[in-house]
């Protein structure tokens, strides 16, 4: 998952906004596309998007910050999203969360100092028949024990070499 680490390309943001602005409910579409492309919605893109849609900065900022999915900073090279909701709690997600935090040395919403992993909490992945569940980048995993997590982590680290 290659991401633009510069994070901000005003011309590209403008082009995305111009292309989508006529669609009903365009702001969500634009934010999704910006985040898909750059990995985050940089603060500097807010006024550009606002200008295209005739919205104030505050309105755009309000939407960006309302939704858990939108980041205003780049994530690590890998994003681990761990489900912390009830079904996974019933299958040991609380202990798993402790284990994951310990392994990575970061808390939820944080990125490891080498920039390899961002850890995020998520509330239900719809994989409740196979709890506990987590997503690493785009891949969904079920019945993740601490040992299984260590395997998955090792695979990702292996990929980097």
């Amino acid at each position, binding site marked *: 998952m290659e991401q633009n680490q510069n994070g901000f390309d005003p011309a590209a943001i403008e082009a995305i906004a111009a292309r989508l602005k006529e669609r009903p409910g365009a702001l969500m579409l634009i934010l999704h596309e910006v985040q898909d492309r750059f990995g985050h919605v940089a603060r500097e893109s807010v006024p550009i998007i606002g200008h295209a849609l005739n919205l104030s900065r505050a309105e755009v900022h309000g939407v960006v910050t309302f939704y858990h999915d939108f980041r205003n900073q780049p994530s690590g090279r890998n994003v681990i999203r761990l*489900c912390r909701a*009830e079904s996974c709690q019933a299958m040991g997600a609380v202990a798993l969360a402790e284990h994951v935090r310990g392994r990575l040395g970061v808390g939820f919403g944080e990125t490891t100092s080498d920039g390899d992993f961002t850890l995020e909490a998520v509330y239900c992945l719809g994989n*409740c028949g196979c709890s506990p569940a987590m997503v690493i980048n785009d891949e*969904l995993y079920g019945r993740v024990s601490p040992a299984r997590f260590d395997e998955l982590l090792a695979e990702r680290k292996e990929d980097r070499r």
Partner: protein
Amino acid sequence: MSATVYVPRDSSALSLGAGKVAGAIAAEAARRNIDLRVVRNGSRGMFWLEPMVEVLTARGRVAYGPVTPADVAPLFDSGFLTGGEHRLGLGLTEEIAYLKRQERLTFARVGIIDPVSIDDYLAHGGYRGLERALSISAEKIVEEITESGLRGRGGAGFPAGIKWRTTQQASASQKYVVCNADEGDSGTFSDRMIMEGDPFVLIEGMTIAAVCAGATQGYIYLRSEYPHALRTLNEAIGAAYKRGYLGEKIAGSAHTFNLEVRLGAGAYICGEETAMLESLEGKRGMVRYKPPVPAIAGLFGQPTIVNNVVSLATVPVILERGGAFYKDYGMGRSRGTLPIQLAGNVKHPGLVEKAFGVTLRDLVEDYGGGTWSGRPLRAVQVGGPLGAYFPASMLDLPMDYEAFAAKKGIVGHGGIVVFDDTVDLARQARWAFEFCAIESCGKCTPCRIGSTRGAEVLDRISRVARTSDRETTMGLLRDLCDTMTYGSLCALGGLTPLPVLSALRHFPEDFGLSRSDVAWTG
């Protein structure tokens, strides 16, 4: 020889390695020069058997599972392509007790067909509901839905017929049909399984709603946590356009219906219908005041039919076979079937579609097989994070909207999360407040502030020793829960006290309290 093998493309099956199994089967067939067709179907909903592979034989479909890539070569060796015996063999799929005892109306095709093949859908009775809908009046469509007794499967249980009638009778230049696919409740996955396993049934249901209301534009508001559902829906929508089931003159009629999937962005509150409409309009997912109801002033202020995935996916069978047929299932004022989801600490997690009236015990013990851990079952939470926790002694409760309401619980979206005896209900109660605080849209004070204060009050309960202090704290909690229940704008704040109070009522010992301390919870 030529053979057909089914390997699910369902998210849960994929999360357990179904993709690798499908790849291994194709590779092994190539190695053996076998002409093999691998169909990527939806899941049958027996997750302890996933990845479950099926083979088409002269006797019917034979199942094997759970299959790992390492099992693939041995399966070929034992002649699984003709239903040969193997230690993973489960016999004829249709004869597996878990499936055989179900009453699958909404889920009739899930796991059976290729989800993105419109020909497969048509061959299995697809689009018969729409065909009938196009041959009768809009009023008659509403009558069938009303007659069926279908109530909103998203959780609120509001009669679908009333919504439909309201939008159908409203006059406007533009009307909409919106499918709420923001299935955020933990312990639920029936919407996802429909979208990944039989997306055409949802498309057909929405098309019938559009024909009925005179709506020309539809949206499926899908949660971003479901990327596989997104892919499957978009493939199916593309196929429906190509074959004239979407777009102009649908199925040769005079109706136009365009359909598009829109993604949410990880906000639980957007499962609330008015917050969802705001989000579709490109705004923050803030709950709206009602009235006006969305049926009159919904998306972009226009009359809008808003229904959950399962509700809309049930519409085709109702139109095809008639409201009276559907109504025949169920009990009391809960008519038809409910796709129930068994989740959490349960031995046989999965999807069980049954007529209303099936008891929690039937579901958790007979279907579920008890806990996954093998430890005693201590609690079940029914209806998602806003649902009540019930103790093992209450498992004879039937799945019925009114029976649950009488016991201060909700059926919700039909998810059951099982907990064994290691659960701490005081922690679960606190979590209910925490979750509400994380997901509150912030528009109304009881929810925005009450959720945080609630967690603090619960912390205090565990610390107070003196009887008088305990009584004061209980009084505070009672007031707070009353304020949230009666003063919140929507179900998030309004129902958060439900799990909290049920935990106190049924499990006071976890809070260091006695039965008499919590008598006020009723």
